[in-house]
């Protein structure tokens, strides 16, 4: 797959970093449910967390393709930290786009890895039906008070800032939703619990409660009633990011499987000499590359400023389904060892599943694609 010399160098850097630093971080996150702050800070210093951000806030001004490439390389080893690269870009972009000059510092802190900003949209009764959220933003003098709760918020337990979607007008459906930048040290904000997840562990995925949390007027992001639209716009980029993350999981699973198959001996031969294994590896390779090409096409188009709703949905759908299949085949190739926590593929197999669910379920992706095709 073709990359410019610069993108290739960025890819090499991300790969070296992942191979050197992320194995231990991945193990700590998965087995101890611990967030590796030192590794996160290093990612900030290297520029991974503000890859595409403008230089004025300390970003590297790299393009969307470079960002997708970094996410893929990190996800081969630690999908959670790859997801943090995605999240930090998404939130820095959001704050820059919809906030005011007074939010520059916050965007800078997010891009530098000094603070984590989470996105709080999902609620216990509102997942795919995002417009059905019930968290209410009550108008009060000089601002708003937030009442309600959110669930499954990635990094919610560790975030210093959160963009919260809440209804400013409970009778206006999705047009009643607004976005707010909330400092998590605000009185009334609390982390009720963190989830005990199948995979993508250690990210502090949390249930949040808002008990009359005061948000000053200036911390409303953009216009009242536009919050849903802002989030929908951000989702295209998010889907490209998840596509890249899934490609990375698939690639990591494939690399592990190749290494294992070339050393594991049964019946006097390495198992990569058996057609059954060869065919598995070949299919894993082709499908992973196909996923990569869909992701990169969407990234390139977005980098060129073109709309990518269809391409992003294709990439997310295909890459997540591919990664789930490849991770399963990887465990198969590893045999019994693939079922133990000694192997990376055991972890990738558990990590991968959520990608068919979050950022828009794959059923929703099919709806989005069908609607775009048939309109």
């Amino acid at each position: 797959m073709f990359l410019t010399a610069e993108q290739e160098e960025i890819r090499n850097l991300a790969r070296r970093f992942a191979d050197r630093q992320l194995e231990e971080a991945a193990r700590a996150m998965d087995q101890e449910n611990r967030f590796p702050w030192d590794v996160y800070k290093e990612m900030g210093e290297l520029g991974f967390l503000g890859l595409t951000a403008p230089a004025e806030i300390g970003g590297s001004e790299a393009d969307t393709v470079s960002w997708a490439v970094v996410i893929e390389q990190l996800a081969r080893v630690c999908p959670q930290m790859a997801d943090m690269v995605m999240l930090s870009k998404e939130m820095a972009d959001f704050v820059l786009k919809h906030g005011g000059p007074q939010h520059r510092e916050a965007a800078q802190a997010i891009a530098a890895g000094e603070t984590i900003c989470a996105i709080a949209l999902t609620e216990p009764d509102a997942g795919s039906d995002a417009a059905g959220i019930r968290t209410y933003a009550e108008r009060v003098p000089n601002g708003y008070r937030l009442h309600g709760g959110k669930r499954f918020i990635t990094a919610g337990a560790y975030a210093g800032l959160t963009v919260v979607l809440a209804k400013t007008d409970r009778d206006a459906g999705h047009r009643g939703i607004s976005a707010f930048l909330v400092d998590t040290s605000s009185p009334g904000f609390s982390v009720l619990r963190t989830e005990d997840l199948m995979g993508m562990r250690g990210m502090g995925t949390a249930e949040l409660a808002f008990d009359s949390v005061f948000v000053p007027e200036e911390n409303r992001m953009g216009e009242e009633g536009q919050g849903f639209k802002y989030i929908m716009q951000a989702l295209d980029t998010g889907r490209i990011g998840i596509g890249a993350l899934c490609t990375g999981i698939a690639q990591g699973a494939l690399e592990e499987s190749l290494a294992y198959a070339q050393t594991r001996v049964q019946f006097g031969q390495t198992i990569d000499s058996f057609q059954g294994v060869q065919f598995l590896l070949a299919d894993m390779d082709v499908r992973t590359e196909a996923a990569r090409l869909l992701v990169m096409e969407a990234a390139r188009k977005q980098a060129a400023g073109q709309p990518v709703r269809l391409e992003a949905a294709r990439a997310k759908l295909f890459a997540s389904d591919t990664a789930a299949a490849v991770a399963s085949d990887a465990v198969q190739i590893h045999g019994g060892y693939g079922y133990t926590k000694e192997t990376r593929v055991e972890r990738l197999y558990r990590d991968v599943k959520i990608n068919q669910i979050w950022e828009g379920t794959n059923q929703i992706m099919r709806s989005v694609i069908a609607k775009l095709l048939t309109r």
Partner: protein
Amino acid sequence: MKIMVGIKQILDPEVPVSDFRVDSATRKPVQGKAKLVMDSYSEYALEAALQYKDKNPGTQVVAACVGDKPAEEVLRKALAAGADEAIRAWEPGWDDLEAQTVAHILGSMARRLGGIDLVMVGRQSGDVERGLVGPMLAEDLGAACVTQANRVEAAAADQVRVRTEIEGGFAEAEIRLPAVVTVSNDEGIVLRLPKVRDVMMASRKPIGSVGASDLSLVPARLVSLVSLKDLFIPQLSGQCEFVEGENGGDKAVRLTQRLREAKVV
């Protein structure tokens, strides 16, 4: 202070042993699947120079390589890590240079750059591992030479303090500039990962390129003095004889007998 760091580009030594082949006709290693990488002792030398620069602002680090266009890749890596400038020298026919020639070319590059106080190179290369270029380069420049260093620090004006590894510990020496220091591996000088923005900047920076006509080379130094007769991968064979016996003592007696028969003891 201006430091020139000599960088060598070599075939990746990390390829699996089973993939390494030598072409017996040309007496050269076959590239095969191996990528071209920065030699790891060059990386240590570069990191030592960059650490000097970190501690002594105003220091200039120039990365220099004797290599054709592919060498630009390792020079860009040096720029991304923090070198201020990068330059390569090449002429067609320079594929198989001996150490005294490489040393003379690097020395000429240093003279052409002007103002080079300190040259740092790896103590040996990761491919042929002869360790000749460093000392020969010091001769070429008429400079002091310290080998197997792992730290270089500023000392009094016109001097640097160099820490070298010796049997059982370290030695520290102060040497007068200009000097050539060859750098050995040490966990304190592992080459840093570059920041993304430096990788991007490096990919846009021009890399200087010079040929023989820019360098005032002395013909006598370009002559081949060593003729490579053969390059081969040795065939390994083993012979294993199990010494029989009823118990440990018995086996020990028989083993001693065998060793005496084989004239080992």
